[in-house]
């Protein structure tokens, strides 16, 4: 094996460069706008290049040895307490090599896009500082070989997300959304934290890979699967579920998805970067990273409980969010629910055991969802900050570039056959779901989700780009600095499809090991399934066009779907009342507890305290009287006599330094005489 000692330096550099940019931007004056943007973009470009270098290294190394997956971990001791020590580490394997390239590339494009999008903002430099901070945390999360380091970066990512959602802190909605996002994800993180601590107390390490001693390696997994805890659950299952809590919170899985739509209050590049492409994918990444733990089971033939949970949650989320997306009118919210739905797909894929499918969907989704969000941003920018799709329309004439790229994104997302990356990734997931031994319900749910996806995307396209313009200001195309990233992302969304077709499933083998062969015939292996999904997508688009494309849309009139099934539409528009449900249950319960605590405090404890206080007051009055009459008299006498003698002695201290020195001098003389001659 070639010398790989340079790898850890690169791994360090990739996250640290954006951190340096963030630090400099934080310390520099806010008026240094150019400097902040150039610094962030430059460091991200360097990080991207370094990530590419690492990626090439991983690809080259993987090709040489047939079966083994290239994996290098670089561990070091953080600090020691007593005999034990806490170790952190960096890791490079195909999973994070691909992710590093994706994150740095998308991040770079979005930074460039932001230069145009945020041009007018007063806090331009702060925005770029936050973006750089986020990039640092996200890249750090990817290279971590320790659950602890990953957790630290995980929380930093959450912090950056919080800061960026609330970036326009003058808007109360943004502030509320940022708080909601922070608290909701914290609920999930509590699970992650507990799981991490539990794992550490059981296995004594937090490293993923440590030359056989790591968490995800055989010895540790054996220990975890054979230890049982409450209710006969294997320890591995319990910790995996706890970790999944965190992943679900961050990736907006049902029921912790509520924060993600609200997070769209942040600037659109943030929505694209954090809440579509990278951060929300961190949950998926975490599950993929810890996949051996999830999959560990005492009996290799049985699908582990943890994976079943992941599958079900993913499937439900996918369909659930897709349903809601059907009835939204805010362009970014539709995309947000679509994101949740797609994240559900990724979780579903992971739960079904297809890491490569999930990760490929993640990367593909990152490209086309970032594309869609940036396109949406371009639309919003062009329509003068209007986000309601009912107030748009006919934009394909005004912004042709945006329309073309948006259409590519839409087709990738809905899974148009053959050319688009979304098609192949979804196809693989559907295939996996079809052969899942436990239940066939997830398969049907996924199919339904695919249909809905095509439907709501068609609806959105119809509203935004077709028909006639319904807004008040005249729209315009966005500047080049915004459209060029769009085109680059669109190219990526198309080209990515090449590496994961069944004919040449390079990506699959890249992630999971094995040799790749080109086999054209393999494309048509699962042709029945493929046909089914093509039909479903086609019908989704068809119905969507039938409902929205044919007729003239109006701003105030009821939605086409609302005319057909008003009650269902209302329920969907209100996001199936999940927020209201939380309001009515969790939050009300908490309010009641607060009231109860207040009553207890006021009536019961305060009364007791008052009683005790009164008793003490009485005793002290008695004590004071005794003190005055008995002790003080005698004591005063003693004091005055002492004061008199003290005054006489104090006269010696006359404040004249020369007198003191005289005494010292005579003392020295006497001492010398005494010691020398007596």
């Amino acid at each position, binding site marked *: 094996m070639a010398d790989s000692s340079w790898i850890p330096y690169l791994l360090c550099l990739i996250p640290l460069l954006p951190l340096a940019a963030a630090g400099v931007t934080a310390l520099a004056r806010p008026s240094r706008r150019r400097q902040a943007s150039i610094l962030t973009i430059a460091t991200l470009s360097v990080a991207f290049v370094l990530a590419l270098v690492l990626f090439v290294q991983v690809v080259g190394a993987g090709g040489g040895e047939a079966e083994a997956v290239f994996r290098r971990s670089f561990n070091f001791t953080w600090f020691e307490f007593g005999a034990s020590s806490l170790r952190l580490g960096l890791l490079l394997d195909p999973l994070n090599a691909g992710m590093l390239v994706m994150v740095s590339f998308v991040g770079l494009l979005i930074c460039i896009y932001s230069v145009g999008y945020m041009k007018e903002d007063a806090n331009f430099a702060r925005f770029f500082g936050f973006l750089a901070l986020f990039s640092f945390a996200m890249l750090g999360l990817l290279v971590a070989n320790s659950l602890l380091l990953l957790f630290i970066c995980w929380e930093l990512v959450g912090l950056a997300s919080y800061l960026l959602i609330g970036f326009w802190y003058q808007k109360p909605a943004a502030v509320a959304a940022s708080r909601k996002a922070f608290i909701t994800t914290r609920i999930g993180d509590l699970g992650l934290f507990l799981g991490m601590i539990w794992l550490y107390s059981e296995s004594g390490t937090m490293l993923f890979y440590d030359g056989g001693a790591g968490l995800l390696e055989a010895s540790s997994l054996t220990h975890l699967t054979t230890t049982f805890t409450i209710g006969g659950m294997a320890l591995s299952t319990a910790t995996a579920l706890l970790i999944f809590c965190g992943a679900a919170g961050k990736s907006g899985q049902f029921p912790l998805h509520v924060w993600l739509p609200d997070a769209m209050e942040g600037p659109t590049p943030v929505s694209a970067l954090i809440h579509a492409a990278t951060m929300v994918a961190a949950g998926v990444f975490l599950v993929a990273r810890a996949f051996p733990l999830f999959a560990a089971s005492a009996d290799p033939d049985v699908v582990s409980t943890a994976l079943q949970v992941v599958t079900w949650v993913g499937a439900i989320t996918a369909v659930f969010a897709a349903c809601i997306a059907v009835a939204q009118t805010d362009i970014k919210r539709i995309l947000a629910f679509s994101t949740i739905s797609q994240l559900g797909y990724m979780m579903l894929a992971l739960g079904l055991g297809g890491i490569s499918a999930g990760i490929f969907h993640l990367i593909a989704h990152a490209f086309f969802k970032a594309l869609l969000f940036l396109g949406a941003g371009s639309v919003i920018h062009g329509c003068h900050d209007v986000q309601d799709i009912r107030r748009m329309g006919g934009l394909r004439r005004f912004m042709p570039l945006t329309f073309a790229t948006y259409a590519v994104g839409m087709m990738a997302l809905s899974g148009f056959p053959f050319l688009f990356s979304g098609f192949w990734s979804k196809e693989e997931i559907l295939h996996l779901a079809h052969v899942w031994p436990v239940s066939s319900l997830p398969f049907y749910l996924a199919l339904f989700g695919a249909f809905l996806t095509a439907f709501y995307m068609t609806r959105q396209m119809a509203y935004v780009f077709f028909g006639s313009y319904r807004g008040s200001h005249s729209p315009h195309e966005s500047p080049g600095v915004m459209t060029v990233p769009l085109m680059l992302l669109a190219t990526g969304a198309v080209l990515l499809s090449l590496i994961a077709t069944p004919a040449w499933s390079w990506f699959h083998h890249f992630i999971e090991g094995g040799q790749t062969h080109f086999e054209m015939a393999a494309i048509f292996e699962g042709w029945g399934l493929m046909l089914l999904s093509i039909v479903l997508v086609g019908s989704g688009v068809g119905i969507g066009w039938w409902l929205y494309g044919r007729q003239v849309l109006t701003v105030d009139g009821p939605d086409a779907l609302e005319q057909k099934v008003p009650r269902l539409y209302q329920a969907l528009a209100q996001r199936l009342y999940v927020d209201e449900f939380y309001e009515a249950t969790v939050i009300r319960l908490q309010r009641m507890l607060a009231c109860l605590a207040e009553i207890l405090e006021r009536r019961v404890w305060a009364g007791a305290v008052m009683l005790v206080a009164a008793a003490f007051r009485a005793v002290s009055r008695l004590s004071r009287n005794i003190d005055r009459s008995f002790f003080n008299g005698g004591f005063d006498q003693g004091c005055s006599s002492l004061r008199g003698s003290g*005054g006489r*002695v*104090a*006269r*010696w*201290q*006359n*404040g*004249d*330094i*020369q007198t003191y*020195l*005289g005494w010292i*001098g005579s003392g020295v003389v006497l001492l010398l005489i005494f010691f020398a001659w007596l």
Partner: protein
Amino acid sequence: MISLPIFLILSAILFSLGLFAVLSRHSMILLLIGVELMLASANLNFIAFWRFGPHPEAMTGALFVLFSIAVAAAEAAVGLSLILLIYRHLRSTNPKDVNSLHG
């Protein structure tokens, strides 16, 4: 004829003169002058012991004087600025007037 005791006696006289100034003169500047006298006499002792001592090549005495001169310079600077500060507050440099801490 010129030997160690002569220098020692000379420095003892200088020391006593300095001590007298410190004990009896009514000006803080003269106090400081007395202190300088005493320091100089101590330095003279060091040099004399270095010169007449058994190991002049060790240079301990001379180096000590070097350091002592530096310390004395610092002492003089701080002491004089203190005198200046006291004068600004009390309009006097008589140490007998600086007795607000008397018993």
